[in-house]
C-alpha cells in the first residue's frame, strides 16, 4: 500500500506525451458479442506513437474484451481496427503480432520450461527466423542473426537487471520477474504497440514502482501502450490519456486528472 501511495503522490512526468502525433492504432466502432451479450458496444479511440492509454472501468465493463479484440483473440462483430493505417480487423492474432501489435495476458504467460534467456531469444527469432523453411534453407543467415539476437537478449537482461536469472527456468521466477520476462519478450520483437492486461497482478507491492518506471521508459522510447489496470495509481503514473468503459460503451476519453472529476465516470464506478 505504501508503495502505491508513493506512486499516487509522485509528480506525473510525460516526456514524450504526445509522441510525434502519428496515430498508431485506431479503433472504430468496435463491437464484440459473446452469444447474445454485447461485451463491447461501438467503442472508438486512437492511440498515437509513444502514447500510453489507460483503459479502465468497473468489473464487467468490457476492458479485457476490448483488449482481446485489438489483439485478435476476440473476433470483432462490427467496426474496424487500423494499425498504422492498415485494416487488421480480419487478421488473426499472430499476423497482428507480426505487424507489431503485441500483448500480455492477465495471468502470466512465460514459457515456463525454458530459461529466461531462451524466452527472450525465442521472441527475438520472430516469425521469419523460426520458420521451417528458414531453418532448413537459410542456415548461415540464421546463425548470424541468432548471435545478434542473443546479444540483444543479453542487453535486455542487463537493462532490466535480470542477468542473475538468465539461466533460471521462467517458472522458477517471482511474479514480478515473470511480468518483466513477458514485457522483455515483447520488446525483443521491436513492437509498435503493447497491450498490457493487468500487468501488476501478482507483482509484489515493492516492485510495482519499478515496473511502472520501466513501462514509462518504454513509452518514452516511442512504443505506444494500452494498459488495462485496476490499480488506478499505476494508470495515473503511466497514461497520457484514459479511456473509461462501462457496460461495453466508452463513457470518457481524457487525461487522468479530468477523468477523476467526471461525473459520469464517478457514477459508473460508484454505481
Amino acid at each position, binding site marked *: 500500500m505504501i508503495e502505491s501511495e508513493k506512486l499516487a503522490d509522485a509528480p506525473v512526468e510525460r516526456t514524450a506525451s504526445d509522441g510525434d502525433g502519428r496515430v498508431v492504432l485506431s479503433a472504430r466502432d468496435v463491437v464484440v458479442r459473446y452469444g447474445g451479450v454485447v461485451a463491447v458496444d461501438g467503442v472508438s479511440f486512437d492511440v498515437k506513437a509513444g502514447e500510453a492509454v489507460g483503459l479502465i472501468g468497473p468489473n464487467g465493463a468490457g476492458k479485457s474484451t476490448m483488449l482481446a479484440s485489438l489483439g485478435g483473440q476476440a473476433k470483432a462483430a462490427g467496426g474496424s481496427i487500423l494499425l498504422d493505417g492498415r485494416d487488421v480487423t480480419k487478421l488473426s492474432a499472430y499476423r497482428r503480432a507480426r505487424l507489431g501489435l503485441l500483448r500480455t*495476458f492477465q495471468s502470466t504467460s512465460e514459457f515456463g*520450461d525454458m530459461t529466461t534467456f531462451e524466452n527472450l531469444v*525465442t521472441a527475438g527469432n520472430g*516469425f521469419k527466423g523460426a520458420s521451417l523453411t528458414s531453418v532448413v534453407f537459410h542456415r548461415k543467415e540464421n546463425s548470424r542473426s*541468432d*548471435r545478434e539476437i*542473443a546479444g540483444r537478449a543479453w542487453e535486455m537482461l542487463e537493462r532490466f537487471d535480470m542477468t542473475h536469472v538468465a539461466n533460471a527456468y521462467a517458472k522458477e521466477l517471482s511474479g514480478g520477474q515473470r511480468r518483466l520476462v513477458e514485457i522483455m519478450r515483447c520488446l525483443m520483437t521491436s513492437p509498435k504497440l503493447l497491450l498490457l492486461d493487468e500487468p501488476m497482478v501478482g507483482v509484489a507491492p515493492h516492485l510495482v514502482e519499478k515496473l511502472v518506471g520501466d513501462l514509462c521508459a518504454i513509452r518514452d522510447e516511442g512504443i505506444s501502450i494500452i494498459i488495462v489496470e485496476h490499480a488506478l495509481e499505476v494508470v495515473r503514473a503511466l497514461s497520457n490519456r484514459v479511456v473509461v468503459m462501462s457496460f461495453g460503451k466508452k463513457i470518457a476519453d481524457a487525461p487522468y486528472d479530468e477523468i477523476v472529476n467526471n461525473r459520469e465516470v464517478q457514477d459508473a464506478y460508484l454505481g
Partner: protein
Amino acid sequence: MGAWEFYITTLLVYFAIDVLSAYSLNLQFGFGGIINLSYIIFQAIGAYVAASVSLGPDTGANAFQTYLFGASLPFPLPLILATLAGAVLALVIGSFGLRRMRKDYQAAVLLIVSLIAWQVVSSDTHLFNGSNGVTGVGRPLGTTLPLSSLGYQWIYVVWTLVICAVVYLLVRWLSVSPWGRALRAMRDQEDAAISLGINVTALRLQVFVIGGAIAGLSGGLLVEYIGAWSPGAWGYAETFVILTAMFVGGNRNYKGVVLGTLLVPILFLELPRFLPPFGYPGLIDSLEWVVIGLMWMASLLIRPQGIIPEKRNLVYAGNFDGVLRGRSMSKLSLRRTQKAEAK
C-alpha cells in the same frame, strides 16, 4: 549360438525401430506438446506401402492376397515411399485432428482416428488384405548381397542403426533450431506464442508431418525385416508402449527416450520369455499390458520428467553460440566459468 545370435540381432533391429518411433513421438510430444495417440497408424501405413510396392502386383504368385499399389520397386524406393506415405497421412489427419481445441480433445480425436483406421483396414480386404494382412515381402537386396542368413541379420542391424543415427541428427538439429524453440514455446504457452507472431497451426502441422514421416520410415524398415504386416501388428495399444517408454526414460530428452526404449519394449517385454510359464495361456501377455499401464502411471506420479529430464540450456556472457545450438555447459566448465567470474 546361432539361435542366440539371431535372437540378439532381431532384438537390436526392433530396438532401433522403436527408437525411431520414440524420436518421432518425442519431437511431437516432448517438444511440440501434441499427444499423438494415433502414432501407430503412421507406422502401419509406412509398412503397408513399403510392402505393396515391393511385393509386385497382386496377381500370379500373389493372387492369394489383395492390396493397393502393387509394384516391384527396387531398394530404397519402398522405404522412401513409406516415409512419404507417413507424411501425407499425417498431413491429412493433422489438418482436421489438430485444429485449435484443447489438447485432451486433440488426443481423443487422434485415438479415435487410430481405432477407426484399424477397423477399416481390418474389415476391408481390398485395401491391404483385411485382417490377414500382406505377406511374402522380400528383404531388401536379400538376393543381391552374398551373405549368410546371420550375416544379413547383422547388416540389417547396422542399416537400422545408421538410419537411427541420421534421424537422431535430424530431430536434434530441428529441436535446437529456432523452429524447435518456437515449438517449445507453443508447448509451454500457446496463447503467448501466438501473441509473439508464431503461427501455431502451421507449426503443429509441420511437427506432426515430420513425426509421421519418421513413423512411416520405421514401418517400412519393420516390414522389410519381418516380411509381413497385418492389423495384429498395429493395434492402438502399440502406441502406448512407445509412449510409456518415452515417459519412463524422459520425454524432452533424446537420450532419455533411448533409455526408455531399452527398458520398456526391449527389456521389459522380452523378460517374460525367460520366465517359467504360469497361469492359463495368454495370461503373461495380458499381464504385460497391465504392467505397461502401471509403469506409465507410476512414472507420471513418481518422476514425471522421466529418468533423464530435459536439459537446461545455460548461458553465460560469451557462450551464446553454445546455447543457440542447444548445448548446455558441463558442470566442470560451469565451475570454471564461475571461478573466473568470481576472480
